[in-house]
């Protein structure tokens, strides 16, 4: 292993890491919105939309992410929808994560004791009011562990969009290896960066979890 190679390639790798973070961050935000509304639609069993939501979740969970990426990037242009690699990647990642998030949102909303909704309704709150003021703050706490897990998985999944030429961490590593012929060194450095990144977010989200559960402590 040659240390100079590591030092020389580090700036490029770190820059590509920013792309990885960007992909994960923007995708998780979109996924949160998709996941939330999908969960609400499925809980309220909204006519028609419910069927669509169920199919969406089933499709996303029942097919490999890589296939979803290919369908969006290589498949959609055939029907006139051409997206650049980054948009395709973000779309695939957020649709995929959104499906998983909707499951954890749904489970966490249903996990809040029914008495909470009854107490809210019996005060004269509207359903959206009760959801926003009483149910969601509690279900969010319940959901945080699975949400953090989804985010960690999402960070790892960003590596898959390297196959459609998005220059994120893994793609950059491959590019550097093509020049240096040092696959072991460079891939290990990439792995180390992923590991540090994920450890950092894991710690951060653990803190959030502890914070949000303060009221449960006797």
């Amino acid at each position, binding site marked *: 292993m040659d240390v100079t190679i590591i030092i020389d390639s580090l700036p490029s790798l770190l820059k590509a890491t920013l792309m990885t973070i960007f992909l994960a961050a923007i995708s998780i935000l979109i996924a949160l919105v998709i996941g939330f509304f999908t969960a609400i639609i499925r809980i309220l069993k909204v006519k028609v939309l419910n069927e669509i939501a169920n199919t969406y979740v089933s499709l996303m969970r029942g097919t490999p992410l890589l296939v979803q990426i290919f369908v969006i990037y290589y498949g959609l242009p055939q029907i006139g929808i051409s997206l650049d690699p980054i948009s395709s990647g973000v779309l695939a990642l957020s649709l995929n994560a959104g499906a998983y998030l909707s499951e954890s949102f749904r489970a966490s909303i249903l996990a809040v004791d029914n008495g*909470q909704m*009854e*107490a809210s309704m*019996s005060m*004269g*709150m509207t359903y959206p*009011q009760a959801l926003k003021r009483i149910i969601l703050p509690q279900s969010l706490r319940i959901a945080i562990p699975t949400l953090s897990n989804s985010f960690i998985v999402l960070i790892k999944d960003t590596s898959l969009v390297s196959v459609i030429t998005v220059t994120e961490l893994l793609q950059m590593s491959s590019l550097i290896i093509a020049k240096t012929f040092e696959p072991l060194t460079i891939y290990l450095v990439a792995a180390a960066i992923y590991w540090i990144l994920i450890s950092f977010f894991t710690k951060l989200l653990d803190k959030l979890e502890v914070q949000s559960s303060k*009221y*449960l402590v006797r």
Partner: protein
Amino acid sequence: MTMIQIEHLKKAFGDNEVLKGIDLTIDKSEVVVIMGPSGSGKSTLLRCLNFLEEPTDGIIQIGEYQVHAGGKIDRHRKKVIRELRKKTGFVFQSFNLFPHKTAIENVMEGPIAIHGTKTEEARTIAEALLVKVGLGDRCDHFPAQLSGGQQQRVAIARSLALNPLVMLFDEPTSALDPELVREVLLVIKSLAEEGMTMVIVTHEMNFAKEVADRVVFMDEGIIVEQGTSKDIFLNPKEERTKQFLYKVEAVVTE
């Protein structure tokens, strides 16, 4: 003056008819205690009054708000039901306090969410109510930090914060350790003395004797008989009432 009027109220869960035609008129400031064996439909009756269960048939009127069962579920009906709920405090057997909010935040929730009261004003209202139920020194405790009796008193304060016309209690002390029952009953009794209209489902006979203007005995979805606590406890007319009292008293004297 009539405060609550229930006319031929029926409620079925599928094939199981739980309320088989309840008629009950309750005056302003009247305290009605409902007793009856487990499964006789007491909770269902109370929950129908708040539309936590949708009745199958009948008419419910509380104050000026009248709702017919089985009506079209449109905006207007939902609105009337919401208004009716605002005017009825509901106290649950299991308290149902909001666990992520402190005692005072629980009590402030109604004024803020329902009446649009400003935070500071809501805090003043809530503090006074917590003092009233004897919890002035527990404002900043979370429900998990309070005893069952304290939690139930916070729940009562939370309902009172909306200035209800009527308070409904569904076995408010059944989930409590025996030594905590009294503190909750005393709060309810003080409301009775202030002239609050109340419907209370409870098995506490001594309490019923103290506060009830009327005792209603229910069994299998109908009102079997009703009268003053003396009528019901000392001279029950119906066989079912006698049997029930015999069982309850056997437990009490054990």
